[in-house]
């Protein structure tokens, strides 16, 4: 099987359109995951046993089932309930929900890692709840979270090809359609792999740097 550069040149514009959608899905999905994760982390900490217990099981459930099936679920079932979403929006919600369950764990660990003494000291100097969170807890809790969050967003980026199963025209779907149309699989499939490697390998190296930078003094 020989590699055909002419064919590569011919399909690159189509693949580039897919890249744009892939990146959009990753960015939007990350934003949703960040917000949903925070909400779920706060609900998980609720004093009300019923709320924290239910959310806990829900998180376990979403984490224990395949993203692909969750995407199908959102894409096929929400319209039955009268919520018609474009494939991309359904995909972004699916990605955000799935990875939100992971980011909520990051938030939880980050907040739990701030030592009790900090809370007590904040109370001792009579800070309000708002001041305690904004000036004491979050500045200490957030930096260690950054590498972990970035790690999950990278993982999400790599999972975006799943959106092709619900007809989002991202990179993988474009590659599959040009491959099926021309009946040549070598170039499109390989280019998809190369693209993901080209982003994620430098990202991993960058992440290692970020990890060192934000690990900071041991608490």
């Amino acid at each position: 099987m020989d590699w055909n550069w002419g064919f590569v040149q011919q399909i690159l514009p189509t693949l580039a359109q897919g890249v744009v959608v892939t990146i959009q899905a990753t960015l939007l999905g990350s934003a949703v995951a960040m917000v949903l994760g925070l909400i779920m982390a706060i609900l998980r900490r609720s004093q009300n046993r019923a709320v924290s217990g239910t959310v806990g099981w829900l998180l376990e459930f979403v984490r224990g089932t395949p993203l692909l099936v969750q995407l199908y679920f959102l894409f096929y079932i929400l319209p039955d309930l009268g919520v018609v979403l474009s494939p991309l929006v359904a995909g972004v919600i699916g990605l955000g929900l799935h990875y939100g369950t992971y980011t909520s764990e990051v938030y939880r660990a980050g907040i739990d890692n701030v030592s009790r003494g900090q809370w007590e000291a904040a109370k001792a100097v009579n800070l309000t709840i708002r001041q305690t969170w904004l000036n004491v807890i979050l500045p200490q809790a957030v930096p260690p979270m950054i590498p972990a969050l970035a790690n999950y967003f990278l993982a999400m980026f790599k999972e975006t090809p799943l959106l092709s199963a619900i007809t989002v025209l991202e990179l993988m779907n474009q590659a599959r359609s040009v491959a099926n149309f021309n009946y040549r699989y070598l170039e499109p499939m390989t280019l998809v792999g190369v693209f993901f490697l080209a982003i994620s390998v430098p990202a991993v190296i960058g992440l290692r740097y970020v990890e060192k930078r934000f690990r900071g003094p041991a608490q």
Partner: protein
Amino acid sequence: MSDWSGYLSLILDGAVVTIELTVMGCALALVAAFVAGLGRLSRQWPLRALATAYIEFFRGTSIFVQLFWAYFVLPLFGLPLSPLQAGVLALGLNVGAYGAEVVRGAILALPKEQYEACTALNLSHFQRMRYVILPQALVLMLPTFGNNAIELLKGTAVVSLISLSDMTFQAQVVRAQTGSTAMPFLTILVLYFAIALVLSFSIRGLERKLSAGLDVTKA
């Protein structure tokens, strides 16, 4: 509704395929994890480079891309794979790459004194690994291996896209035949979650069994 039992048996047929894939994928992943993990710790640099390349390559792209590559591109190099073979290969090698880092991390996490004690007792390289390092490192690896096994289970859903009739594929068949979306997808979500729970309980049991009599400080 009377047809439902027939459809349920279709889905259960799929569940068998999903479990087969999970078990075979885990077996391959375990082997790959130890080979690559120990390879990364080797004193020979070609071995280290090879293991690093394998790990970065498989962690840099998603199971989906690797599966499509294995299924559509490998035949062009004279290596035709059945969907099941391609599935086991992609899942096993992908999760094995994550497992390799776990193996490496666990071995490095053991305190230096353990190695020094082995030298003091004049144990051979093999004896040191077999009787001192691995029994302790294995306990450290198990919780993460459990998570990896669940990731692999979730990854199996992707094989439905290369026409292997796993649980997700069968749910799609049922959806096409009945027009009902909620039932098949809810059923398989619950089944996936049940399998994930069984996996995590058995890993926890194994952990208790292996750590009995060991004085390992939990990291």
